[in-house]
């Protein structure tokens, strides 16, 4: 566990030492903020709706996270592979699983800091109304879970290649697929997708959190996706021994 934490600290420091964290974080905050206030087509007006709610944030933040987080995770392994530091890392007395967990935890630190900065939204709303704090907490729990799943998927794609751009693009596609699994892609194949496939969608699983309900089914789902991606990343890292 100590090894995982040490690796996580190192990863987090590396992330915040590079300007990409600040660029990605700021882009996330500005884009999410614009979507929050004006909607995706600019037709919405948060203040005209006169509702003290954070629902627009929870509606749009997963979209921006799906785009921003693969940009953060793309370098996690791909960069180490390209620069050759991965070989150095694996000589340390840590297992591949610990390396993956450490990197994921480090990236989670970035996610947590970025989401913490979005606290400015509920603070702003509290000055003009009384938002339901329970619903706000529920939404943030959901964002942390969905964000972690995005990070794990991004990390997985980062283990597949030396090229960060490829890692980013594949990671982005994977995250967007899982977020909109039923709404966009499955519609092409089904008139109305079966319930099992609907449940595959992050969006379906996230709905309850946005309402302020933490349901064990949704929590387990996001943790399952994260766990599968972590295990797959571990074996992907191990695959260097198979060549």
């Amino acid at each position, binding site marked *: 566990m100590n090894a995982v934490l040490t690796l996580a600290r190192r990863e987090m420091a590396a992330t*915040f*030492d590079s300007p990409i*964290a*600040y660029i990605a*974080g*700021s882009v996330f*905050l*500005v884009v999410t*903020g*614009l979507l*929050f*206030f004006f909607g995706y087509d600019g037709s919405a007006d948060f*203040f005209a709706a*006169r*509702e*003290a*709610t954070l629902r627009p944030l929870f509606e749009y933040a997963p979209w921006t996270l799906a785009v921003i987080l693969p940009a953060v995770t793309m370098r996690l392994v791909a960069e180490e592979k390209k620069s050759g530091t991965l070989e150095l890392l694996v000589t340390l007395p840590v297992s591949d699983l610990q390396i993956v967990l450490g990197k994921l935890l480090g990236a989670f630190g970035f996610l947590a*800091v*970025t989401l913490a*900065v*979005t606290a*400015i*939204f509920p603070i*702003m709303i509290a*000055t*003009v*109304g*009384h*938002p*339901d*704090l*329970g*619903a706000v*907490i*529920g939404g943030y729990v959901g964002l942390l879970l969905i964000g972690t799943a995005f990070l794990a998927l991004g990390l997985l794609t980062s283990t597949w290649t030396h090229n960060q751009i490829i890692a980013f693009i594949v990671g982005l596609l994977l995250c967007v697929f899982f977020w909109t699994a039923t709404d966009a892609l499955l519609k092409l194949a089904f*008139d*109305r997708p079966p*319930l099992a496939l609907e*449940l595959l969608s992050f969006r*379906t699983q996230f*709905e*309850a959190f946005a309402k*302020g*309900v*933490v*349901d*064990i*089914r949704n929590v*387990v*789902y996001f943790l*399952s996706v994260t*766990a*599968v991606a972590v*295990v*797959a990343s571990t*074996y992907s890292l*191990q*695959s260097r*021994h*198979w060549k």
Partner: protein
Amino acid sequence: MGSKMNDTKKTVSKKGSSRTDAWVMLLAVVGVAVLLNALLTQTSLRIDLTDQQVHTLSGASKKAANDLDGVVITAYISKKLPETIPLPNGDKMPLKGIERAFRDKLEEYVAASGGKVKLVYADNGSPGVGTVEEQAEAAKLETFSSKEYQVAGEELKFAHYAMGATFHYKTVHEVFGKALQPGYYEFEITKILLRLQEKYAAAQIQKEPLSQGKAVFDAVKACNDLIQKKGKVDEGAKDDGGGLSLKTGADPSQKRVDAMLAAKDDIAKVCGDVKLKIAAATSLKGKSQFGDQLLDAAGQFDQVIGELGDVLSGKAEQFKDKPKQLAAVMGQAMGMLADLTKEVDRSHTNLSDSPGRKVVGFLCGNGEFCPFAESEPFVQEQMAMMVAQNNPMMKQIVQAATQIAQGIDETNGRIGDNLFTKRGYSIRRVDADSPIPSEISSLIIYAPRTALSEYTRYQLDQFLLSGRPVVMLAQEWDVALMNMAPGDELGNDMRMDYTALSATGSNLQDVLKNYGVELKRDLTLDTKHVQTVRVMKLVQKGGLQFQSQQDFPYALIPVATHFDQSHPLSKSLDNLALPYATSVEPSAQLAQDKRFEVAKIIQSSESSLSHAAPLPVLPPAVQEVALQAKPNGPLTLALYVRGPFKSAFAGKEPPARPDKKTAEDPMHPKEKPSENAQELAKRSFKGEGVGKLLVVASNLGIEGLDRGQVLKGFDLSKMAQFSAEIIKDYQLWNANFQNWQIRIGQVSHLLGGNLQFLTNILDWSTSHEALVEIRSKGDTRRPMQQVDDGQAKRLRLVTLLGGPLLLIGAGLLRWRLRRARNLALKV
């Protein structure tokens, strides 16, 4: 060399085995994850973090599920629901996730009942029972359309969907017809469970009338089925043993006559039962409106059967040797019988649904909000014709006034249907100056604008003392803001700027004084906590004139901020706008009387103040007045009192019922009150009784639309002679009608929340206090303060730039610290 090759083989084999192990391990992890997720779909372990636990069953709902042993819920859910369905206003309602939400909610009730409630799902699978949608329609659910075409055989038709459930408990059942609003699932289901409980208990007492009603309905249905079958003329239909087929090319009229004549004995035997069942239904007569309606419709059915019997037995001489006429009469009789059977069916459904149903009465006749169409025509036809004979122009004015009256009736009827009846409330009109029917469970006196007569006050007094809840909403002021008014003497167009404040003719202040409640007849203003008023005004741009809408913060629409957290009516409220409110307080004597429970359930903010008339009405002017006055809030805007009230008529003679015969209705004089009525009133007089009284010091923005108020001064006797005054009156009636719409439009943005409060009042008044709390869960909206453009811009800027600046600032700080540390290391 051989050993090296062996090593290489071992390494390759080890690599292959590791790869296989990895894949197996990965598949195992995926398998476990899928299994775990699949198993968890059967559980509902969750934490509801919302303030009022809006997504969790309340204690009252769990208790309702637990109190009934043996409830069977049959859920009808279409296999393939559309993505959206169209709404009447042109918007689309998304249905995504609705099926899961409905199933989850029903299953929550099953879990909460500990096995007492069973849930089954209607299925397409079983042969002979039809599709889920057909089963739902048979179970009297409301199916709905997506307006998407579906190919059925050779024709295109709208696809229909079902989403609802039936609830059976022993001998009674209830229907949740259309479950499309997840926010209200708990409210609707708990309401149904409570209703089943009450209905079953009441049905036990009313077994005899219910079974007699059913016998009458069954007899009517059997007779109608037989007649429709025998007289059916359908070119494409096969003869199924009694029906008709036209394949032979025979004259259909003759065929119908022949078939009916051949079956006349059967018809006489089966249909004769209707008369017998009606005669046997002695315990149904005069006991309830639904029983009477059923007997009335069945009686008419029996009369048509009698006439048809005469025709069939040849007693009707006029049709002898006239088969075509005979067939036409038979066809007409069949149509009437089918219609009457529907009427009997509806009355029977109402009757079997009536046990235990609480009826809310709305007092009408004093300019109140009265959500019913008038039962009597506005002008008697004969009278109108007499006027028309004398003066054709007056005929036109009478017709126009009649149209306004019809518009009023239609609007009121629609309001009643949409706001109350369709939401499952039983409401009934209680005419002023008439006795209050015994079936009324609670009485609403909604913003009267003229004085209640002594007789009405007496009825109200006795109703209150009987222990049934009385709710009074006050409208002490008439606020005309940019209203329509007749033009000048030269007959110019209407003005749109009539602005005035005047007192209504209500005497609620006097009425309430008798019960220790002081209605102040002041105006409640607020400087900070206010809502906006929406004003339409004419704008001139170039040569064009058009209407523009503008919102102004309005001191005359205070927003209440203090709510009694222990009262079911107010505990879930966050804020409530009360237009043109006065204030209400308990008298010093009442406040000190320990026998009474007195609760100031809604109060205005500290920045509010009480102001006497006169007062300017335009928003900036009234704001000016409010800012100059000293706040004396909070003021009470809704007061609840429960306790042993004394009658206001103790020691007095019960007032006589006024004679309502009016000049414009000489053809239909009202029934005179019985001479014994006075004596009976004396005998049944109650001097004291524990009553429940709720007083709200505003009409919640919902003003009554009343014939008497709109068509003020309409007098048919005046119409007989032409005068210029009548033209002026006519303009005024038009203006009055449009002003009602203008006033509602000015506060329309507040009505959502206020109607929610009104339905809470109805729930509370029908003793379902638990439902008040549950209903409010459906409205999770948290209102926000009015934010002006400048403030909105500032908040947007701070929120949009604050986060990134904070992040970049932290980055720069970190960079500087690192640089300082590196420099220190170099040194």
